[in-house]
């Protein structure tokens, strides 16, 4: 369970920052950090077992029929990645607290960050590849939000869109690849797939699956030719860049390759595609990084380069190389996160990230300089820092590769290392060394400890892993590498392998060459600026822009802002599809016995049809249209009653009354007539579409009514259990309050929310000055002299207690006879509305002792209470119970918890209806109508 909890915690926690931001920025950051910390502690509690070599598993069946289960597993590889995600996440949260400006919405930032964290954790903890895919797509979506966090920056939005298009597109390819893989292995569970190496590699579908899965991994990990999105994602706030591009997002692709390594690697195809893509990406990224002036762009391309390095190592296909890859993942995460964070500090303090405007910062920002120096020397691979260890091991592995010719890969890797030394030194030399300048955009100095604490921790890790590699990281790297490769790995990490090791000389060559490159940098830069080169972004835009233009053209052709037009197009499409479906299959009339018509029903139906058909012809007079609508609605009630649905009849009457009242009220503020705007052909077209649609729906209804159901109804159960199980004889009511109580619970919440929306909208309208002016200018209709007729007032007041009695009666009998909370709520609401109608808003409102909002709240609360009450008896939510009581002078009566639930329904319906109508009538306050406080006042003579 705790594994699923670790993955779920950030998602649940994502709700917190939005709340805690009201208590201040520090509280917000602390609550976010607490979520991550709890997840990290949970993970740590599982670590000892994993380090012993066990695999911790949690299995939750989700959709077993699809093979999609919420299965989680934690092995060494998952532990390493989850630790990185949560550990660095914690540091990022700390850093972001001090990095974000007061104008940035911090709650949003932390919510997005936690969403992203949860998605990443999901990827590394999933034991089911379908579940993994879900999380994979979630990282694309949540990183979109993070990269585009500064919504006001166009490059931020563009960068976010590009990242989403590239990584999302790769994700789609990966879905196909994973489905193929699952088909070959016969299961979507990783733990099964990982044992099917021979079957998978022997399958003819191995190569397509491999290519598709690698497309997902390469896009995510920014491998050539998909590397271009990563630098553009740098428009994100620096904490995001540091998180996404050191430890998480881009490492997801690496993780996937490592995860799938046991079954996919080892073939020639894997070796060629993966290692050479990695090698090429490493060289390309390093070369571009060297010539970037923007600190973050330099780091972005260096990230591309290092990801290429790791990919190449995984591509070699030997367990040793894979272990080195794992080790470099740890080292890269530590020094690269530190570097991004220091770049952010420089940006924050000097207001520029441009290397050509920087330099000499070492005296002004000594702390930042120390951190940057440690991290960039590690990136360059200078002993004894951790970057040196893994880089030398990488070179050692590259030497062994003999294809296509010995030494080629080794040589290329050395060149990559050389370039890496050059850009790392350049970061340091052009940013921090050199003479002091007088033209910084802002006078720089070291920031407060809050900002440098996080990178300082990372720099300390860089040094400690460098000095004591086996103590600090050997155990976790061994565990992760063992889990990755399936063979026991015990790395011996040391700085000195003797003079005979080729890696030593390659390292020295790289460092020397790097210094030479830096020395001749100005000349190289001129050469670079003079050579034309293909710009990946331009190619991407060339591909995307025509597509986007076509999509826009299609959209505006279908939807030009005219609602009626798009509705007509949609209807025509549905009609065409329906016609096709109908004519494609033979039609046979139904055989169910039909009911003989009787005179009363026919007469009822005739009036109903007449009223309905008259509406389109008379609808321009809105009052008449409304009356006709009411007639139709009310006549539906007896139809329900006739066809054995008394509950529906009652509800229909109640709802119809409040609906018509509501519309009447609204009509007060709207024009009373609809102008004739559409020409006759247009009206004929609309009538044609409407007639065809009506014909379709009517025929479908007829076809359904004349046939027996294809499957037996599940209602036999409800009928049988209504009395014995739920304790009521009204099966409709027991379904509503008991069998499907959960539905009803959701429904009353929806109803309550609808009423609150109405209230909120009317509040905004009342505050709007333009609306107030327009309300005051509304033409007043000619009113009768008697605003509140005495007879009406007296009559409705007499009616109130009687109506309430009827309401209570309907409520009480609801469980056994037609009635219940819905109808009772409507009856009460109508009784109150009549008071408003007869005596006016002000008079009635002053006498209303309860607040409608509170009523809705109580309704939901009481219903929830009835549901939660079941827990006290160890039963699931909303299980109802009942008993019979016999109090002496009364007859025996029933007590059911469902009645409490129904009370909640009642309160909610009453509150919602009253709130909706009261909100609308409040608009009248601005129409210049005199408030009436007296019981029945006379309108001034006109």
């Amino acid at each position, binding site marked *: 369970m705790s594994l699923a909890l670790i993955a779920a915690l950030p998602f649940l926690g994502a709700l917190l920052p939005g709340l805690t931001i009201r208590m201040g920025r520090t509280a917000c950051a602390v609550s976010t950090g607490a979520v991550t910390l709890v997840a990290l502690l949970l993970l740590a509690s599982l670590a000892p077992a994993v380090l012993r070599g066990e695999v911790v598993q949690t299995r939750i069946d989700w959709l077993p029929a699809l093979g999609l289960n919420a299965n989680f597993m934690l092995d060494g590889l998952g532990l390493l990645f989850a630790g990185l995600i949560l550990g660095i996440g914690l540091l990022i949260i700390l850093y972001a607290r001090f990095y974000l400006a007061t104008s940035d919405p911090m709650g949003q930032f932390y919510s997005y960050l936690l969403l992203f964290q949860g998605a990443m954790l999901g990827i590394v903890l999933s034991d089911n590849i379908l579940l993994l895919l879900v999380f994979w797509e979630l990282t694309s979506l949540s990183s979109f939000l993070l990269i585009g966090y500064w919504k006001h920056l166009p490059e931020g939005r563009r960068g976010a869109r590009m990242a989403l298009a590239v990584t999302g597109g790769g994700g789609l390819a990966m879905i196909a690849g994973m489905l193929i893989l699952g088909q070959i292995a016969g299961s979507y569970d990783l733990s099964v797939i990982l044992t099917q190496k021979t079957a998978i590699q022997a399958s003819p579908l191995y190569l397509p699956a491999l290519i598709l899965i690698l497309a997902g991994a390469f896009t995510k990990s920014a491998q050539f030719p998909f590397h271009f999105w990563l630098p553009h994602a740098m428009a994100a706030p620096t904490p995001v860049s540091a998180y996404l591009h050191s430890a998480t997002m881009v490492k997801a692709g690496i993780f996937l390759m490592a995860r799938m390594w046991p079954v996919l690697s080892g073939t020639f195809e894997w070796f060629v595609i993966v290692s050479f893509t990695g090698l090429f990406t490493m060289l390309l990224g390093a070369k571009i990084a060297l010539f970037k002036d923007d600190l973050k762009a330099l780091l972005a391309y260096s990230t591309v380069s290092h990801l290429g390095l790791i990919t190449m190592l995984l591509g070699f296909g030997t367990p040793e190389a894979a272990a080195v890859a794992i080790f470099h993942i740890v080292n890269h995460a530590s020094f690269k996160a530190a570097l991004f964070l220091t770049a952010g500090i420089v940006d924050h303090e000097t207001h520029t990230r441009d290397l050509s405007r920087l330099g000499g910062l070492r005296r002004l920002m000594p702390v930042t300089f120390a951190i940057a120096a440690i991290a960039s020397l590690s990136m360059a691979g200078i002993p004894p820092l951790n970057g040196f260890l893994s880089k030398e091991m990488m070179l050692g592995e590259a030497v062994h590769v003999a294809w296509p010719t010995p030494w080629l890969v080794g040589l290329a890797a050395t060149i990559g290392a050389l370039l890496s030394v050059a850009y790392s030194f350049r970061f340091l030399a052009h940013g921090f060394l050199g003479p002091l300048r007088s033209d910084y955009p802002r006078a720089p100095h070291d920031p407060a400890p809050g900002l440098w604490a996080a990178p300082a921790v990372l720099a300390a890790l860089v040094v400690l892993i460098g000095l004591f590699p086996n103590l600090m990281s050997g155990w976790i790297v061994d565990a992760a590498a063992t889990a990755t490769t399936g063979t026991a790995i015990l790395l011996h990490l040391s700085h000195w392998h003797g003079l005979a090791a080729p890696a030593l000389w390659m390292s020295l060559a790289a460092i020397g060459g790097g210094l030479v490159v830096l020395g001749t940098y100005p000349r190289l830069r001129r050469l670079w600026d003079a050579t034309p080169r293909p710009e990946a972004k331009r190619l991407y835009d060339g591909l995307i822009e025509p597509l986007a233009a076509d999509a826009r053209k299609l959209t505006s052709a279908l939807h030009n802002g005219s609602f009626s037009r798009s509705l007509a197009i949609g209807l025509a499409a549905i009609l065409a599809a329906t016609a096709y479906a109908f004519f494609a299959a033979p039609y046979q009339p139904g055989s169910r016995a039909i009911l003989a*018509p009787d005179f009363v029903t026919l007469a009822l139906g005739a009036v109903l049809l007449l009223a309905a058909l008259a509406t389109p012809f008379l609808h321009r007079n809105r009052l008449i249209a409304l009356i006709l609508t009411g007639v139709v609605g009310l006549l539906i009630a007896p139809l329900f009653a006739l066809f054995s649905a008394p509950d529906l009849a009652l509800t229909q009457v109640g709802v119809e009354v409040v609906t018509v009242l509501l519309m009447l009220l*609204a009509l007060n503020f709207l024009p009373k007539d609809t102008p004739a705007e559409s020409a006759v052909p247009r009206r004929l077209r609309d009538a044609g579409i409407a007639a065809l649609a009506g014909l379709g729906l009517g025929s479908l209804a007829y076809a359904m009514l004349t046939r027996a159901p294809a499957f037996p109804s599940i209602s036999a159960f409800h009928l049988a259990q209504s009395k014995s199980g739920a304790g009521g004889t009204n099966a409709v009511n027991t379904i509503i309050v008991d069998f499907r109580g959960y539905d009803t619970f959701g429904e009353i919440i929806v109803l309550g929310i609808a009423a609150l929306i109405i209230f909120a909208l009317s509040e905004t309208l009342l505050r709007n000055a333009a609306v107030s002016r327009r309300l005051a200018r509304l033409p007043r209709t000619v009113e009768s002299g008697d605003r509140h007729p005495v007879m009406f007032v007296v009559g409705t007041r007499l009616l109130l207690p009687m109506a309430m009695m009827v309401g209570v009666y309907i409520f009480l009998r609801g469980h056994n006879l037609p009635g219940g909370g819905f109808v009772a709520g409507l009856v009460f609401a109508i009784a109150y509305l009549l008071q408003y109608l007869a005596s006016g808003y002000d008079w009635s409102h002053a006498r209303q002792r309860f607040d409608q909002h509170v009523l809705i709240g109580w309704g939901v609360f009481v219903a929830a209470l009835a549901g939660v009450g079941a827990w006290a008896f160890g039963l699931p939510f909303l299980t109802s119970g009942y008993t019979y009581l016999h109090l002496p002078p009364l007859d025996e009566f029933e007590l059911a918890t469902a009645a409490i639930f129904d009370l909640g329904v009642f309160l909610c319906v009453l509150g919602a209806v009253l709130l909706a109508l009261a909100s609308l009538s409040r608009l009248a306050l601005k129409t210049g109508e005199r408030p009436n406080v007296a019981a029945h006042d006379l309108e001034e003579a006109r």
Partner: protein
Amino acid sequence: MEALLATIIGVLAAVGIYLMLRLRTFPVILGLTFLSYAVNLFLFASGRLALNAAPIIGTAERYTDPLPQALVLTAIVISFGMTAVIMIMAVGGYLQAGHDRVDLDRDDEEPT
């Protein structure tokens, strides 16, 4: 009877759709109401028609299907909520824009 109910459903749907294709908010909302009637009746009809068979245990020899009834009951209430919300939106739109057309004006800003 079946033919009658089917006719009613068809006519109500046709009237509703015709009104929804009008250009002002009020008839569109009325159209939606008509369409709700039709759809509710249609859902109800999926339980098939029966006379004197209300699903009240102990009052009849056989009972009609209570499930569509329960679903339609909640649907009726929800359609009220929906109608109320779009009604206030229509009123707000009219009061803010000064007209109650449902379509964008040609000179209104193009949605981007």
